[in-house]
């Protein structure tokens, strides 16, 4: 039996965490660091018809306003695959600010870079975005009619259905049948440190200080999306900052931080705000599950 069982053990990183000595991704300070803030879409579905960044750029400390109008196109399209598969894990099947489409409320439609976090957020509040609203589907019930039967699950890794035995006759012959539908509301992960990425370029070499569960997943994703060799991307994570699983996938802000830093040629930190923890990051979606089971009178 392991001598550790039954004994109290000190966490290796405990003293650093409780004394504040631990440096989280949002606390990495680099010379010349700038801060990025995301402007989230104000509509759930539609198009961006105009963006005006003049007022934002006129605000103190603002350096750049990025949107689909001036953000470079990605080298590769994101492909939805769980990080467990060991490949790029972009978390979403599209990348924001590549075109004018809005897929969900809060989706990044612009990004402001400024010399302090506060000034970045203030400037972001001054970006004027004009939308053309389209009909949206935001609940399970609204989308039920348009739903289709999935053929695969988990990014194509698993078949969506499997069958064994004769279910129909089993149900027909049973003495007791239970049929129920179970509904669960959407859940949002909220770790103590909201996902934060600090990006710095040295020539063509990119370093990311990222609050991620998998440095490899971040490295693979950013390398694929930006089309740069894996060997040119270094990802450093000191402390994850909590996750509840949400930092397994590599949400758009990681690549956006790298793109922002490349645009302004300075280190840039992009920290999700707490409200953004409910939009362009992970969501445990609402779901409705049906169940039917049957038993013989003797329990068989």
């Amino acid at each position: 039996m392991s001598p550790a069982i039954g004994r109290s053990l000190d966490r290796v990183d405990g003293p650093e965490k409780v004394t504040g000595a631990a440096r989280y991704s949002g606390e990495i300070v680099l010379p010349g660091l700038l801060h990025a803030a995301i402007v989230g879409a104000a509509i759930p579905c539609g198009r961006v018809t105009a963006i005006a960044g003049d007022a934002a750029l006129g605000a103190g400390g603002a350096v750049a306003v990025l949107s689909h109008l001036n953000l470079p196109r990605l080298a590769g399209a994101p492909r939805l695959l769980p990080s467990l598969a060991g490949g790029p894990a972009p978390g979403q099947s599209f990348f924001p600010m590549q075109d004018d489409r809005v897929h969900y409320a809060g989706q990044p439609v612009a990004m402001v870079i400024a010399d302090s976090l506060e000034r970045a957020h203030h400037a972001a509040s001054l970006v004027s975005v004009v939308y053309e609203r389209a009909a949206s589907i935001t609940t399970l019930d609204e989308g039920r009619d348009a739903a289709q039967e999935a053929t695969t699950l988990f990014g194509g890794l698993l078949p969506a259905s499997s069958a064994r035995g004769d279910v129909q006759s089993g149900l027909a012959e049973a003495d007791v049948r239970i049929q129920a539908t179970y509904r669960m509301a959407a859940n949002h992960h909220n770790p103590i440190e909201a996902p934060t990425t600090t990006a710095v370029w040295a020539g063509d070499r990119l370093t990311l200080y990222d609050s991620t569960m998998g440095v490899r997943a971040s490295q693979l994703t950013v390398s694929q999306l930006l089309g740069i060799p894996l060997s040119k991307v270094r990802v450093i994570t000191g402390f994850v900052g909590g996750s509840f699983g949400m930092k397994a996938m590599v949400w758009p802000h990681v690549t956006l931080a790298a793109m922002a830093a490349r645009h302004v040629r300075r280190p840039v930190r992009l920290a999700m705000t707490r409200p953004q923890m409910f939009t362009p990051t992970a969501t445990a979606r609402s779901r409705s599950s049906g169940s039917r089971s049957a038993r013989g009178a003797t329990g068989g």
Partner: protein
Amino acid sequence: MRPLSYTRALDVDGAVAVVARQPDSAFLAGGTTEVDLIRLGVARPDLLVDINGLPLRQIEELPGGGLRLGAVARMSDVARSPLVKARYPAVSQALLLGASEQLRNMASMGGNLCQRTRCAYFRDNVSPCNKREPGSGCSALEGLNRGHAILGTSEHCIAAHPSDVAVAFAAFDAVVHTIGPRGTRTIGIDDFYLLPGDTPEREHPLEHGELIVSIDLPPLELARRSVYLKFRDRQSYEFALVSVAAAVEVRSGIVTEARLALGGVGTRPWRARRAETELRDGPATIEQFALAAAAELAPADVRRHNAFKTELAHRAIVRALTRAAEGAAR
């Protein structure tokens, strides 16, 4: 966060003069609510005048047995003051049941009285809200209103007042002293909090530039055995769904005097005068306490999600009065 200017006041008159002179300015004490609201864009001052350095941190005895609390005395200092604990235990309890230790170490007494509602529609800076944007409508009437008020509401606003200690102050007839551009003023706690009516944006009668300098607790013998009960969704760091400040004087089984105030259910700290009337000269029994609770809650105006507060408040009142009476029996 909007850019703003900041200055530190050196004396009370100077602080009042600077704020009175500039329309979009505000006093800054502990900042535990105000800075949040500025970050959210709900409060939009161009100038903050920091009053933390002013000599307003006293907790001192008044002739006759009352206490004077300085406006920038910290919640934690007042909560732990032996004078407060001995004479007004409900004040100490209410303070200690509010916020967190870190916030209490920073938050001021004057700021506590002026804190704004936790109504999510007020704070989100987007939804229609008559308190934030007069005339824009009240999103809470038909929205998520579980935490909202059931007493003192209007068709324009049902936001609950969030303070705990103000509930105890209401029970004890605290008095607010101010200095403003037009001189000094004394405002009874009843007059300090306005009902929302059709002007929910106006929560107290302070003029722009008028500064709370102290809060007096008048002498009140039965307050020495007062209690404060608070019910909330979690056991710490949460605002009240229902709270009760109670104090009674009981002689030979008869309630000779009663003070009762409610939190979490009113659009302002809610002095329960109907209940007090019902209690006075009646038996100190659970049945009578229940009658008093029912009298107070009869006008309750409940909404889709907050109807439970009537029953919760009823039980909380009975429990608080029972505890207060146990301490007061002689």
